[in-house]
C-alpha cells in the first residue's frame, strides 16, 4: 500500500495557510520527489505524512505501521556511536538483542559504513552521518521512507555518490520513497515522478513522470531541469513579492 492524500490542508496560527487542499496518490514501491522552493511547505507535508503534524483539514492514508523518516541534518544522537544509533531504532521497534547486533552490522555494511560502526557522529563527515541516518531509517523496516532534503548540506561529490547508493537501495528493497528537495537535478536524477509545489500556500503545480529514457538522455534531462527551474523561480518571485506587499 502506498500513501494517499485527499484535500489535505495545513495552517499554522500566525502564518496562515501553508498547504492548500493537496491531493495526491503515491503508489506502493514508487520513488516520488516533491519539488518546491524553500518555505513552500514541503517539509510540513512530509511531517504530516510521518504523523508529526496533524492536518488542519482533509485526510491522508498511510500504511498502518507508519513511515520511516530521514531528517535534513541526520539528527543522530551525539552520545551514541554509529552502530548504537542504528541499534536504537531496532531496540525501539522491540527487536531482541541477538538479532539486533547482526542486523546493525548488515545495515551499516549496506551503506558502506561497516568500518565506522564504533565512531561517534562528530568523528564522521557530513556524508557519513547521512549514511548512518539512512541505515537507521532502513532499520525501522517500514515500507514507506520519507526523506526531508537529506543531501542538501553535502558537497556535490558526496551527494552524487549517495544518489547512486539510494537508487540502488530503492531497487533492492522496493520501498516507497517520498523525497523532498529544492534541487531540480536531484529530483530528476532520483525519482520516477516529480510533484512541483507552489509557494504559500503549497499546492501541486505540475506533475512530471521521469522515464529511464529521459534520465539517461542528458539533453532531455537538462531541458526539463531548465523548465522546472523557471517554474520554481517564478514561484519564488511571486512569494517574495507577496512578502514585500504584506510587510
Amino acid at each position, binding site marked *: 500500500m502506498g500513501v494517499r492524500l485527499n484535500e489535505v490542508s495545513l495552517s499554522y496560527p500566525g502564518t496562515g495557510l501553508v498547504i492548500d487542499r493537496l491531493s495526491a496518490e503515491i503508489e506502493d514501491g514508487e520513488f516520488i520527489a516533491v519539488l518546491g522552493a524553500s518555505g513552500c511547505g514541503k517539509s510540513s507535508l512530509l511531517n504530516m505524512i*510521518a504523523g508529526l503534524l496533524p492536518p488542519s483539514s482533509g485526510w491522508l492514508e498511510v500504511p498502518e505501521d507508519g513511515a520511516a*523518516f530521514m531528517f535534513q541534518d541526520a539528527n543522530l*544522537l551525539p552520545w551514541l556511536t554509529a552502530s548504537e544509533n542504528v541499534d*536504537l531504532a531496532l531496540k*525501539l*521497534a522491540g527487536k531482541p538483542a541477538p538479532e539486533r547486533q547482526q542486523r546493525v552490522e548488515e545495515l551499516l555494511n549496506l551503506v558502506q559504513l561497516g568500518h565506522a560502526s564504533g565512531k*561517534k557522529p*562528530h*568523528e564522521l563527515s557530513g556524508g557519513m552521518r547521512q549514511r548512518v541516518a539512512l541505515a537507521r531509517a532502513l532499520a525501522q523496516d517500514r515500507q514507506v521512507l520519507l526523506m526531508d532534503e537529506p543531501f542538501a548540506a553535502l558537497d556535490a561529490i558526496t551527494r552524487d555518490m549517495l544518489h547512486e547508493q539510494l537508487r540502488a537501495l530503492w531497487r533492492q528493497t522496493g520501498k516507497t520513497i517520498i523525497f523532498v528537495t529544492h534541487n531540480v537535478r536531484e529530483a530528476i536524477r532520483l525519482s520516477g515522478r516529480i510533484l512541483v509545489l507552489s509557494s504559500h500556500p503549497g499546492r501541486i503545480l505540475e506533475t512530471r513522470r521521469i522515464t529511464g529514457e529521459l534520465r539517461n538522455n542528458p539533453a532531455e534531462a537538462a531541458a526539463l531541469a531548465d523548465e522546472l527551474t523557471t517554474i520554481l523561480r517564478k514561484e519564488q518571485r511571486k512569494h517574495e513579492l507577496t512578502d514585500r506587499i504584506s510587510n
Partner: protein
Amino acid sequence: MSSLTESRTRFKPVRVIKLRPNNQLDSWVAPLLTVVVLLSLWQIISWASPLREDLFPGPLAVAAKLPQLLADGSLVAAVGNSLFRAVSGFAIAVIISTPLALLLAHQPLLRKGVGPLVSAMQVLPSIAWVPAAIILFGLSDATIYTVLLLGAIPSIINGLLAGIDMIPAQYKSLSKVLGASKWEHVLHIELPAAMPGYVAGLRQGWAFAWRSLMAAELIAVGGSLALGVGSLLQRGRDLADLPLVMLVILTILLVGVLIELLFFAPIERKLLRDRGMTRTGENYG
C-alpha cells in the same frame, strides 16, 4: 636561472607556527602558582603586621597547628564525618530531585506553579533553615540533613530542567518517528540529551550541599551530633584559636575543591568529549 635560485634561497620563513599540544600540566600549574603566590603574600603581610601572631597568624603558624590536630585525631574524624554526611546527603538529594525534575518537565501546569518556588528556594541561603530545623529535630543528624537537602535539591532540579529545556526539538520528532513510548523517550533520548545540564546542576548541587552542611554544623553543635568540620570551626571560635579556625577553613576549601577536581571535572570532560564538544577556553592557552 641562477638569479632565480638565488632569490629562492634568500627566502626565510618569517615565523614558524608550531601546534602546541593541549598540555594537561598547564591547567594544574597555573592555579598552583596562584596559591603559592597568595600564601607567600599572606605570610609576608603577617610578618610585617604589628598585630600579634595569634591575632593575625600567617600560613606557617596555621600549618604548625596541623600536627596537633592530626595527633588527637579530631581533624580526620571531623573530615570523615562531614564527608559521610555530605556524600550520603547529596545522594539522597539526587534520588529525590531527579524524578521531581522529570515530573516538572512533563507537567507544564505543575511546573508553572512549582517552578518559581524551586528557583526561589535556590536564592534562599540554606543557613536560614537551621533555626527551624533545630526547633523541629533538635541537635540531631536530621537537622543537618534537612538543611543540606534544602540547599542541594533546588539546584539539581533546576539543572536537569535546564538540560531538558535545551534538547533540540528534532530529538522529539525522532523519538516519535522511531515509535518510542513516553518512558523509552525519557530513558533513551531525554535523559542522555539533558546530561550536560544535569551534570552542571549536580555540580552546583554538590557545592550547595557542602556549603549548607558547613553552615548547619557550625550552628548545630552538641546533642547527639558527631564532630564535623563545621563544629571544629565553632570550637576554634570558642577557644579564640585563629590558627585553628584558618586551618579548618583551608580544609573545607580543600575538600570542596578536591571533590570538584577528582569527581565532577572528569565526568564533565568525558561527557563533552564524547559529544565532540569542549568547554569554552579549555583548548586555548
